[in-house]
């Protein structure tokens, strides 16, 4: 398994798109900087800044789309170049293959959120919008790591769809629908969608200002939602990879 994971990272050599996608982690911290600069606000609450730079669109839209693209990219290559046959006769187990891809997504997701966290701190503290407080920085880091870890699990259904497809159009389209539907369902029933469930887990301490929930907070339900989606995704991807022979 360790060899499989190592080779997954080796395969990413010279993939500029991977670095480009990672750079999108700077979008929201930068937009937050522009926003607070435009309104000329100083000494704002750190959580107010981080809500915009790390927890808002990054959680609901940017990170899911980036991870969806990454899942598609990871799965597409071997399908496109007809390499699966060669891998199966190594032999590589289908579950091992899928889990090694998942591990790449997992690490990437955490890196993405750590960059977002660092950029949020830099863009807020250096221009002087937010005072340097270690407590809020640690809180930001904690939440970013939670988002990074959970996002990888939340995107497992997209990895399953990418595993079942030779092309990239369907997984890319499904990623967009998946990300936006998570955002929309947040205000209807958050426990139906893994992304909205993840958002509930992130805000469970009620420490993010301006978030009003229409439903009662139930963290086990949120984990259950993610778990069910992931189990179904794993089963489907296993079937899809078996058919891929």
């Amino acid at each position, binding site marked *: 398994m360790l060899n499989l994971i190592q080779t997954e990272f080796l395969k990413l050599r*010279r993939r500029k798109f991977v670095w480009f996608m990672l750079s999108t982690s700077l979008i929201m911290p930068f937009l937050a900087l522009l926003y607070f600069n435009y309104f000329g606000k100083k000494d704002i609450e750190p959580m107010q800044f981080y809500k915009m730079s790390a927890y808002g669109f990054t959680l609901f839209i940017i990170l899911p789309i980036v991870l969806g693209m990454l899942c598609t990219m990871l799965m597409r290559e071997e399908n496109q170049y*007809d390499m699966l*046959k*060669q891998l199966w*006769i190594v032999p590589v187990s289908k579950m091992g293959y899928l889990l090694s891809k998942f591990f790449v997504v997992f690490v990437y997701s955490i890196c993405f959120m750590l960059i977002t966290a660092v950029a949020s701190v830099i863009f807020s503290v250096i221009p002087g919008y937010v005072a340097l407080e270690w407590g809020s920085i640690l809180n930001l880091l904690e939440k970013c790591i939670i988002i990074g870890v959970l996002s990888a699990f939340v995107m497992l259904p997209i990895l399953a769809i990418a595993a079942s497809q030779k092309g990239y159009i369907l997984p890319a389209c499904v990623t967009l629908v998946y990300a936006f539907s998570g955002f929309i369902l947040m205000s209807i029933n958050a426990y139906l969608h893994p992304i909205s469930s993840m958002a509930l887990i992130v805000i469970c301490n009620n420490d993010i200002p301006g978030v009003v929930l229409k439903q009662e907070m139930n963290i086990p339900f949120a984990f259950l939602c993610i778990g069910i989606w992931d189990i179904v995704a794993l089963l489907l991807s296993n079937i899809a990879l078996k058919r891929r022979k």
Partner: protein
Amino acid sequence: MSNFLIETKQLTKIYGDQTTVNAVSIHVGKGRIYGLLGRNGAGKTTIMKMILGLTPITSGEVKVFGQNMKGGEKRIYPRIGAIIETPGFYPNLTGTENLEIFAKLRGTAAPNAVKNSLEVVGLPYKDKKLFSKYSLGMKQRLGIANAILHDPELLILDEPTNGLDPIGIAEMRKFIKKLSVEYGKTILISSHILSEIALLADDIGIIDQGILLEESSMEELRQKNGRYIQVQVSDLPKATLILERQFGVKEYSVQDDHTLRLYNTTLDMAAINKALVMQDVAVISSAFCNDTLEDYFKKITGGEGIA
């Protein structure tokens, strides 16, 4: 355990209502090069995929190294190297990097495995050229390098000369032969090019429309289909006695009650005819025949298609 490294029994593959492979039984002996010859779409790749367990078998049985492939994959795969259809690799990596990935996945212990396998196929080690920039010939070579990376006993090569230029084909043939002769590998190779199989294989299986039409050694086939003199006589036992004693003929075969084939074409036919007639053996006909393998294949497959 039998001497066959690959043995299939009544191997059948049905897609929908189409039978792609129909009750094929092939036998690949240890240390031999077995050529699977057939037109495009004859079922060669499907047979190879079934042998490798890459496609489910409708009915029949595959034994590799005397073991059932189904369920024994983990034990059998490390002993096999294969190229099925066009070998695919990561285009963003160099040949060496690609092989390093496969070496890592296989847990190849030999420290110089990548370097050695690249050397065997004549590709440079640690070259900076990306796989996406490789020519078709280089891609095929890299495919073979990957197949021999872990020093397998058995190689399954599906049309390894596909798309190569004539020089590339000759080079590929040379090192497939080398793998068999110098490294003692058993090789199952498929092709639709008769001349290629004729030059490479020790044994041959001719497949057409999913049916194995013939399986024999190349030597037997050549004997059946080379240049020979066909003689029809009234008394076959007496004729063979005369040929053996008077003319020292040893290379001949009996076709039926009255027909003989003499494989030494330098014999003086006039003298033979005279001797037979003089000893009361009527010569019904005698003729030089020159059946090529191509003629034979056309005859048994019922037409064109094998180059």
